[in-house]
């Protein structure tokens, strides 16, 4: 059996290795599939579902769905983008995302995804959960208000930093990132040089006292939308950020940046 498969992605013929996911094959072919939790170089996670595509009419997360020979895959359709818009909006209203004062604004993949998908104002009520900030470490801050549970820090810390700093605790709506149970950041192995800090797509995991040092106009998404450099790797493992964006005019966060 050949180790190569061929499938159709939005009408384009894509070749892939049998072991590849649809996401990996699309990235290799230079086709952008919207995503938040997936970062090339890390094991796929499949939690955000923003990469949902239809494979032979059935919704699947492209980051964990193997490429299948002869499959027809829909990606950039009105229906799928509407679903993605809903998912992104739910991430916004489920946390406390104040884009206007967030130092990640302009470099934030969640914000950039909202702009790309046209999330101009929330249609769901804000949940306004009570979440805390762990600023106990002298050089690192973990702001649970902004966490979208993508596990990029968990995977990066484990797979690239060789540590086990982050993990999940609790379930459902209570699920949250934690360092070792009962431990604050200052008592963990976390270090300011950890690549896990660069993996965070939002403003949840930050190096302290670095905010706003890049002026408006120089931020990742000030000039091109996320995905404009389709197929190129984003996120920490292969680069500090993925160089996408447009100057925001409105946002799904509480206020435009």
């Amino acid at each position, binding site marked *: 059996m050949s180790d190569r498969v061929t499938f159709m992605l939005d009408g384009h013929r894509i070749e892939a290795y049998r072991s590849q996911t649809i996401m990996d094959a699309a990235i290799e072919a230079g086709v952008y599939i919207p995503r938040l939790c997936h970062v090339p170089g890390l094991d796929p996670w499949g939690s955000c579902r923003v990469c949902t595509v239809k494979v032979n009419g059935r919704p699947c997360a492209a980051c964990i769905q193997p490429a299948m020979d002869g499959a027809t895959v829909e990606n950039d359709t009105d229906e799928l983008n509407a679903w993605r818009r809903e998912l992104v909006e739910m991430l916004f209203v489920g946390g406390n995302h104040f884009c206007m*004062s967030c130092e990640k604004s302009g470099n934030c993949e969640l914000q950039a995804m909202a702009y790309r998908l046209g999330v101009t104002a929330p249609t769901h009520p804000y949940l306004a959960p009570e979440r805390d900030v762990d600023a106990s470490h002298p050089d690192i801050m973990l702001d649970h208000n902004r966490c979208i549970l993508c596990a990029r820090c968990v995977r990066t810390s484990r797979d690239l930093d060789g540590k086990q700093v982050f993990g999940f605790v609790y379930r459902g709506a209570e699920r949250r990132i934690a360092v070792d149970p009962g431990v604050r950041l200052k008592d963990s192995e976390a270090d300011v040089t950890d690549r896990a800090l660069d993996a965070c797509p939002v403003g949840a995991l930050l190096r302290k006292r670095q905010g706003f*040092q890049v002026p408006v106009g120089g931020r990742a998404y000030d000039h091109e939308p996320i995905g404009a450099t389709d197929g190129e790797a984003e996120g920490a493992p292969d680069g500090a950020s993925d160089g996408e964006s447009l100057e925001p005019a409105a946002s799904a966060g509480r206020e435009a940046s």
Partner: protein
Amino acid sequence: MTSQVESVERIVIEPVTRVEGHGKVTVHRDREGNVSEARLHIVEFRGFERFIQGRPFWEMPVAVQRLCGICPVSHHLCAAKAVDRLVGGEDLTPTALKIRRLMHYGQFFQSHALHFFHLASPDLLFGADADPDVRNVLGVAVAHPDLARQGILMRRWGQEIIRATAGKKVHGTGAIPGGVNKSLTLADRDALVAEVDTMLEWSRAALALARAYTMDNLADIGPYGDFESNYVALVRSDGALDIYDGELRAIDARGEVILQEPDNQAYLDVIAEEVRPWSYMKFPYLRALGPEKGWYRVGPLARINACDYIDTPEAEAARVEFKALADGRPVHAAMAYHWARMIELLHCAEVIEGLLGDVDLLGDDLTTSGTRRREGVGILEAPRGTLFHHYRVGEDDLVTLCNLIVSTTSNNEGMNRSVTSVARHAMDGQEQITEAMMNQVEVAIRAYDPCLSCATHALGNMPLVVELVDDGGAVIDRRVRSAAS
């Protein structure tokens, strides 16, 4: 709310229009129909001082500027001055200091132009009792198209300065702890320089207009409030007008210096605040004089009264002429705020012209730092007056205390006295409250260019209502004006 005033009528003006924020005025009248007391109530509450607790200090310049949409740069820079001290970076590099000054003078320029041309000019050009269908910014555009155009373009130039230095025209990110995140590009500098002569020319014309209004109406502006008060403003250590940095100076009604505090960090030794039950806006006073005698006014009138001189030639000549109105002593008329404001407008244009020729603006040495501290105070002059930001942080860099004394708050007593003065003049003995009477009250408030949003840490543009209430408390007449007018 309780009131000590025995009145048979209570007139409520709500909302007050053509000012920033939401407020109302109540006027109490006795059985003879004479005004016994009038109050400006600020009816919003935003609570920034509380909800930024627990946030990291480097967010402050960006977060707290959301208090205001007109003068956010003032809050941005004042917070930055405070957090400079938290990183030991208060001695800025020449580039950082000049970029911040340029940003601040640009913001002053656009804010003063906005107030004079968009908010105040309908009253000054048409009269407080003119037809309200004409007495608005669109009426100005029809009757005085050149003036309206100048107002818009002057504001645009100021906003462009802000964009070039802060990254965005509104709510930028330019000032960071210990400096700035960008310098000026050559293209931006050249674009700004290309318009500076026009801006100077239009500033001179606006100053002439404000001066002429005051001189032509000397007999009529008294009722809007012409009373003695103390004044507070920052001045440079040599007494010169300085809106970005300086020493806190208080003068009395005769112009004598009550105090000059060189240490901004000691502001609480100088200023205290009183809370009154009928307004969300506090009443600051000079601690040395107590709440009764220690109230003071701030803003353009206070700055021009308090400084010894202005270090730009045309504004200095205008200041000397202005002070001659009171034989060198402080000018007390509330309506003189407009004239003082336009002196500052010209001063800003002169300063910006000088700054734009300075190569330091193009430098790349943007930040500095030193010994970290747990507490910092920033003071600067916002367009509406002296602004205080005070932060305390924990070991984890999160804010544990925030105290803001906002410009308009300091004018609380002065605005209330002006409101009482003009209400007595316009409404004493009158059977019916007319729109023109209501507008006279608003004209007095507008002279101070209040930002009620900032003063209560509140949001929006300020609307006003007037009610007549009988001695049983029933409303017998009510006039309401929408925020859009």
